């Protein structure tokens, strides 16, 4: 028996297996946002339809659900009814805000007319707000506490359970 081969081999095997086991069950697509725990980047954008300016800093005092989406995004269609239903239930205690980027105002209007809405939808024409929030894909949702701090970020279409779990972090 060759002891060197056995010992070196077992060490390498143990290291590889340990690392792979440690990685199991984690979602590799999930990236911790550096913004969590920081103040929400300020923005002021025009609401689709009404044309009024909405300033995120003026919304302090209650939790904000900030949802980035677009009409060209498949999963956003799936997520929209969940957002609207929860907004109807939770507002005005919680403020819902949608931000659309890389999109046309006409398409957004049509989308909202067909599928309904319950909160302001803002147009991020140059995509600057999406960049400030580090949005990697749509939909992505930020949960902001009453002091204006981002408490959680969710990637992908929200379910009611996920929304409530994440929102709880912003209620404290």
């Amino acid at each position, binding site marked *: 028996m*060759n002891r060197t*081969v056995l010992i070196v081999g077992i060490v390498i095997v143990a290291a590889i297996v340990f690392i792979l086991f*440690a990685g199991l069950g984690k979602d590799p697509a999930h*990236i911790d946002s550096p913004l969590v725990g920081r103040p929400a980047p300020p923005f002021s954008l025009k609401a689709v339809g009404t044309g009024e300016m909405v300033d995120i800093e003026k919304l302090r005092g209650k939790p904000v659900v900030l949802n980035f989406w677009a009409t060209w995004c*498949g999963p956003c269609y799936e997520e929209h009814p969940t957002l609207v239903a929860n907004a109807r239930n939770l507002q005005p205690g919680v403020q819902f805000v949608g931000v659309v980027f890389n999109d046309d105002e006409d398409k957004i209007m049509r989308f909202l007319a067909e599928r309904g809405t319950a909160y302001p939808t803002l147009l991020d024409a140059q995509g600057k707000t999406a960049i400030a929030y580090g949005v990697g894909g749509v939909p992505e949702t930020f949960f902001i506490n009453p002091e204006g701090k981002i408490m959680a970020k969710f990637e992908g279409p929200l379910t009611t359970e996920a929304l409530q779990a994440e929102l709880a972090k912003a209620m404290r």
Partner: protein
Amino acid sequence: MIPTLGRFLILASVLVATTGAFIAYAAGSKRSPEGLRWSQRFAYLFAALMLAATGVMEYALITHDFSVEYVSHVGSTQVPLWVTIVSLWSSLEGSILFWGFILGIYIAATTWINRNDHQEYMPYAIGTWLSVGAFFSFLIAGPANPFLTVANPPLDGPGPNPLLQNHLLMIIHPPMLYLGYVGMTIPFGFAIAALLRGRLGQSFLRPLRASLLLPWVFLTIAIMLGGWWAYEVLGWGGYWAWDPVENASLLPWLTATAALHSAIVMERRGVLKGWTVTLVQASFLLTILGTFMTRSGVFNSVHSFTQSSIGPTILIFLAAVLVFSVVLLSFRIDSLEADGKLDSAVSREGMFLVNNLFFVVLTFTVLVGTCFPLIVEAVKGKQMSVGRPYFDAMVVPVGTALLFLIGVGPALPWGKASKKEILRALLPPLITGAIVMAIGLALGVRNVWTVLTLLFGGYAAHVTMAQMWLPFRQRVKRGDAIGPALVDAQLRRGRRRFGGYIVHAGAVIVFVAIAVSSTMRTQQEVTLTRGQSTTFAGYTVTYTGSEERAEPHRQSTIARFNLSKNGAQVTTMEPRMNQYAAMREPIGTPAVYSTITGDYYISIMNLQGDQAGVLIINMPMVGWIWGSVIMMGIGGLIALIPSRRRAYVVSPVPAEAAGDEVPA
């Protein structure tokens, strides 16, 4: 009905593979010819069951039988027939079934080819293959069962992943990769057999080498097809991103390439037996690691299947095979060594050793880079990623050194040589190297690594061509007619050697094309209003407008650009932006205009109203990569064709050329 039949076939294959493996191992330890015949029958039966199960699944897919769970996940009456057929490997469960199907074919074919040969080793080899077969059929029967019944079958399904539907390369790339990956099971079985037997005789090298070379050819082509697809479809202007799963396909390729080289030294000198066996084992283990990477959801990649429960099962299998391999190796490695010894470092065999060292260094570099984010997260709980700079910094120098070896290695004679002989072998190719380098410098190459690549590439091309045609030239010099000399020296007797040097020639071009295309590329990001033009890299690009196109599974915006040179129209290019219903981000498909010197590549960054923001890339020589990798594959196949033993030996060939081998 169909789900029940499928489940029955799979359960039967678990039973057959397990029983067959036991019989085979018992036959091996008892050296029983009767036992060997029975294990051969079980090997054929296993293959037949896998074939039948896959046939049943294809039947269910084609007839849109949505009572089969897998069909209800990936089938759709809306997609063309070819998409329906290839849906077999478009999702997790089906891809494992496809794996079993290919494994069955490999096992049956190898068993049949060696049915009367290598009786000493075959029972252990069959036992090992069937053990692997038992594991995969267990996966299909349990954690990844595609034959579950759907209680209330839907009328239609969603169809397979849209990315698989958008390019024909996607039909060829996955099967090629599976043929490469799964095929590594066969040399692994042979290596285990040699270890269990405690010896590795000269005659057993032939099946070991051939069984390694065939999957190597498939893997080589598969890796290239993947890169080509990314380049043609994903729109970021590259072909290799050091994505974990790309790395996973490269890792077994690296160890298999090293093993093919060390096998030659083993054949010539009777040394490196334990080492070659280790490399063969590593190649198989790395394919299992790669399977784990794509199917466990641990790594983030375009290749990842959705999160699944089979990760832990594969990991347990991987751990078990790793431990088994290491223990077996440590018990038997000493009994394999060594019939001969190495005489000199500056020799052909010395260069083979350096080659192996470099390949192993590359393997570790890529493995560590791929797993490093997992290590950091496991140890420090922090997220990080390892990107291009690490891989480029580590891989470029070693790769360049390998190119140097492709030149120097085959130029050196075997065994001990005098200083004068060595210099006479090494100096002349320098002229070709210098000429190629001078051409590059004249054309504006300034990057140090690319200049070195040109120098070594020219050198290696000279040596490769000289060695490739050496037997032919020797025959002609002796007065043989050109035609017969060509056929006999290159294709009949010297086929392995000839094929090997064709692989080298292809590899040399790949090295040069990668270096040139990545360091000499120029790009420009520009926003054009409709009717506006820009001139870049010799071509004038005019934006002529865009068009929306709706297809069932995607929404596309196609932009049109006119390409002209010196006022003359060249072509129309139509890059597009695709939004797939099931995906979070839109995916651009670039337009590529290829010429012999390079590619002109237009990719849409964004489209708004009359304006189009585009990325234009001019990439010299990139198309050479695809062609020369195919050449490497052809070289491998030429070297693989078994020589008809002694049937055509008309006259003896000078020893130098006859037995002279290159890696193949």
